[in-house]
């Protein structure tokens, strides 16, 4: 039996990403906690002490234990791969961070587009059977990000159609997802396993190659900070390069740190990597030989393969989501490059003919909470009156079993 008054309380909203988990309660603008999606379990579970199964650290505490325990990341490229660790992670999230009675709340979780239905079943099992939640909703990240952008633009117009193209670039995966009226256009989705973590690696590589003296044990963290604080998207890679060559003083920033082990001070220069790292999205061949289609091209392809009557709206509402879309200049560059591709295409199809096609508007929506857009969209959705009835309830689950969650209901009423 689930508590009957659960609908009177705000739902719990959790967005588990490859790198970061955002969690909190519906009706908030920001999640209560944002922590790394990692687990450090005590390997020795056979000592027989009764509390051993509780000895699991997650998030930053898990990372702090990396010297003595194996730290594992249960999500890869957006998809859960290790269910044991994922379940432990959820446990600790609910019992130690949110500290709520899961019986008391409906839960909204997120999933990447094209998540296998088995994964939804596993998730439902864990939430209904271990946690006894009264109701569960699993929302597609892109659709939630779209809902977030609508909610942030005009508070009063939640009802406007959920149509647009979401570019979601997090830590582990890049997705381009056209959404029409709340329906994810599955066959038009583009995805590349190249995202924030790769940019961090790239920054680290560039700095090491140049011989910057950063303590190796901190190199990854330093590279991430450099990326988040100093990188930007330039207009033109070659011109930017020349500008850096000509006036390094204007472009190079110095960073300082202290080595944890020895207390030694170090400093390093940050130069070309400032624009080269995000350039990976626009000229992927500088980093990878496997994925070489530039992001604007993928956006263009995704939209061009969507039903013809949706395309104008999809070009006109390109929404950014995920931490790795937060580089300065990112939205502008996408807009310019996609616009160029569209114009070229129009020029090519109308060439020689007398028909002139109407110009296509390309708009890229940026806002100041791209990092938590998916979570915020979940919070907005879970605050609408229709939310509780679009959830799978515990009673539904008991009656039909886990396959009740195989289909993903599209939410209305936003």
């Amino acid at each position, binding site marked *: *039996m*689930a*508590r009957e008054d659960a609908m009177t*309380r*705000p739902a719990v909203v959790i967005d588990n990403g490859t790198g970061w988990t955002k969690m*909190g*309660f519906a*009706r*908030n*603008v*920001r999640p*209560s*906690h944002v922590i790394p999606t990692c687990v450090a379990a005590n390997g020795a579970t056979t000592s027989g002490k*009764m*509390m051993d*199964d*509780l*000895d*699991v*650290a997650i998030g930053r*505490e898990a990372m702090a234990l990396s010297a003595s325990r194996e730290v594992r990341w249960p999500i890869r490229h957006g998809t859960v791969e290790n*269910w*044991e660790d994922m*379940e*432990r992670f*959820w*446990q600790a999230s*609910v*019992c*130690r*961070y*949110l*500290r*709520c*009675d*899961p*019986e*008391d*709340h409906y839960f909204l979780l997120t999933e990447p587009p094209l998540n296998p239905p*088995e994964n939804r*079943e596993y998730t439902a*099992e*864990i939430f209904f*059977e*271990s*946690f*006894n939640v009264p109701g569960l909703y699993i929302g597609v990240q892109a659709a939630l990000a779209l809902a977030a952008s609508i909610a942030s633009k005009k508070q009063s117009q939640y009802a406007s159609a959920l149509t647009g193209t979401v570019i979601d670039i997090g830590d582990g995966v890049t997705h381009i997802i056209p959404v029409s009226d709340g329906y994810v256009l599955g066959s038009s989705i583009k995805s590349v396993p190249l995202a924030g973590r790769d940019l961090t690696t790239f920054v680290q590589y560039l700095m090491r190659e140049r011989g910057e003296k950063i303590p190796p044990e901190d190199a990854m963290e330093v590279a991430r900070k450099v990326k988040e604080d100093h990188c930007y998207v330039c207009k033109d890679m070659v011109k930017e390069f020349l500008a850096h060559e000509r006036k390094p003083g204007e472009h190079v920033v110095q960073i300082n740190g202290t080595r944890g082990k020895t207390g030694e001070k170090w400093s390093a220069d940050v130069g070309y990597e400032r624009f080269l790292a995000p350039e990976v999205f626009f000229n992927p061949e500088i980093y990878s030989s496997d994925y070489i289609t530039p992001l604007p091209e993928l956006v263009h392809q995704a939209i061009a393969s969507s039903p013809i009557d949706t395309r104008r709206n999809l070009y006109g509402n390109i929404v950014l989501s995920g931490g790795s879309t937060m580089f300065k200049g990112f939205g502008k560059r996408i807009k310019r490059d996609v616009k160029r591709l569209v114009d070229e295409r129009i020029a090519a199809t109308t060439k020689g003919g007398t028909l002139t096609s109407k110009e296509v508007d390309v708009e890229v929506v940026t806002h*100041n909470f791209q990092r938590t857009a998916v979570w915020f969209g979940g919070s907005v959705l879970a605050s609408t009156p229709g939310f509780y009835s679009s959830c799978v309830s515990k009673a539904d*689950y008991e009656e039909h*079993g*886990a*396959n009740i969650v195989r289909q993903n209901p599209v939410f209305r009423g936003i």
Partner: protein
Amino acid sequence: MDRDGAHGEISRASPFIRDVLLARVRAVRAGDAETLAEPLGAHAIEFDDVRLAASSVREEKGKDAVDVSVGAPPGAMDGARARADAEALCASGTATRVRDKANAGYDLTLRVDVSELAAMESEAARMEVIERAARVRSAVYGAKLRAHLRALGETGGTEGALDWHTRRPGETMFIKPQKDQVTVVFPMRFEDARDAVIATQFLTHFAEVRRTQKDLSTAPAVSYIKTPPLELKEAPEELLNVAATNGGYVSFVLFKRHVAEDRLESTVWNILTFHAFVSFHIKYSKAYWHSRMRNKVESWLSILKRAKKSDPNGPKKMTTASGRTFVRK
């Protein structure tokens, strides 16, 4: 979070309050005008239906303050005492004060002067102020139990009438002052019948470990029985609600040594959160069993896979502990 949190203990400071205050202090210290310009209005709900809220207040220009409020279901708050305890345990000079009137909808509000916190030189002193504020629910809702335990410390324990603290409607913690001791009784109720079964095993084990392990001999005595203990004979029937108590009765016997000044607060908190502790533990152990089961299913499936060609029935239906079925390919 404190390291002992990792062993299933519930930390006295609320991570929600702590993180909200820390983020705000960080923003002030970094001069992050964008974050500060956005009015703060965060809320959360913790176990036992305790509501927490943090909202920014602009008393005067250039000064940033945050109101931290707590609210619980009706009956949980023991007014005057709770205020006095919050004053003693959570306030810190001019940095944190208990407001005369709680914000609407809540039982008690602390006003935390974030600007003052941000200006503090010592990181440790700043953390201490935050930590004290983050422990507000223990101060407020532990007031009644604390009063009984203080009396035990002062008088050494005298017989008194049965008292109780309502955690949430229908869930009561009984407090019985006796000669030399205070006995606290929890009728254990679980929403889910399967949880009640696991709880019964866990609690039996829990009481046994307390009895048999030497290094626990200074911990309060625990007993676990299926029917209401003698201490509850004066309890009003509607509060006792024997029919709804599907997990038995846990009693803690507390002596003077458990309420010495340096132990009082952790005793209050550990007793107060006992039900949540058990209920979280049940969720953990179910997770543990599920993963064991999944491993079994998986190894069984790999055998099946090897034999697949000869298996005419295709994928098998699996059954989980509670009888759910799922199909794996």
